[in-house]
């Protein structure tokens, strides 16, 4: 059984939408996405995508869920804010150095 079907306590069918992306050896991966998105929302998102990109989608969903669990207020958006601030600071710093040159 994959991690999702184990978590959901159901039989894992041969065409399980979760099985390729939520292997049994990483139960925390599914529990994070389940906690934030819910199993049916994840299944819907994956089903609406072509098979060749579902792995990337599962990875990004997992990462966003992890960020939301770590920071329930800002989630991954907090990281975007920090990166924007770093870019602004770097641009200012670069302008100062260029001015000195």
């Amino acid at each position, binding site marked *: 059984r994959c991690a999702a079907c184990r978590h959901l306590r159901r039989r894992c069918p041969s065409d399980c939408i979760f099985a390729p992306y939520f292997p049994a050896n990483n139960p925390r991966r599914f529990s994070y996405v389940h906690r934030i998105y819910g199993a049916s929302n994840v299944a819907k*998102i994956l089903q609406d995508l072509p098979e060749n990109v579902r792995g990337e989608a599962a*990875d990004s969903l997992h990462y966003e869920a992890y960020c939301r669990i770590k920071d329930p207020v*800002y*989630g991954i958006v907090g990281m*975007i804010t920090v*990166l924007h601030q770093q870019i602004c600071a*770097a641009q200012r710093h670069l302008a100062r150095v260029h001015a000195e*040159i």
Partner: protein
Amino acid sequence: MASSNSYNSPCAACKFLRRKCLPDCIYAPHFPPEEPQKFANVHKIFGAGNVAKLLRELPPHQREDAVSSLAFEAEARVRDPVYGCVGAITFLQRQVERLQKELEAANADLIRLACSDIPILPPAIGMQQRPLELRIVAENGGFCPIPYGFPVTYASSLQWNENHHNNHGGI
């Protein structure tokens, strides 16, 4: 952020869910009826129940920020179902790396210019000749301390979260 209940108009969530909008509706302060798409996106990606659970676990003064970030994430995921917000992170990280390289190059140029400006004095007569020493001191031992070494890669551990209340375990 007035509750829509005071105007006897259901909030966007209760309108979408076709239910009565009660005075203590958890969604009402954050999903006004004038912004139906905001709730529609959030419900599509996270589910109304999960959003309510998330909001209930937060103190009231943090809920508006949480809803804003959830709405942002949901919209990003609707626009890009494969990468969502992670696509933006990857793009911004590349920008940071590019700027850091530019900064390193600019600092190297600055130091080369500074070195070329230092006059080489002729040795004073009778004094022992000593080689010119140029030592560039920086905090981290490099020629330019970059105060924001932030090479966070996709799925690496997060270092940026110290300022936020962290009440959950990590990966």
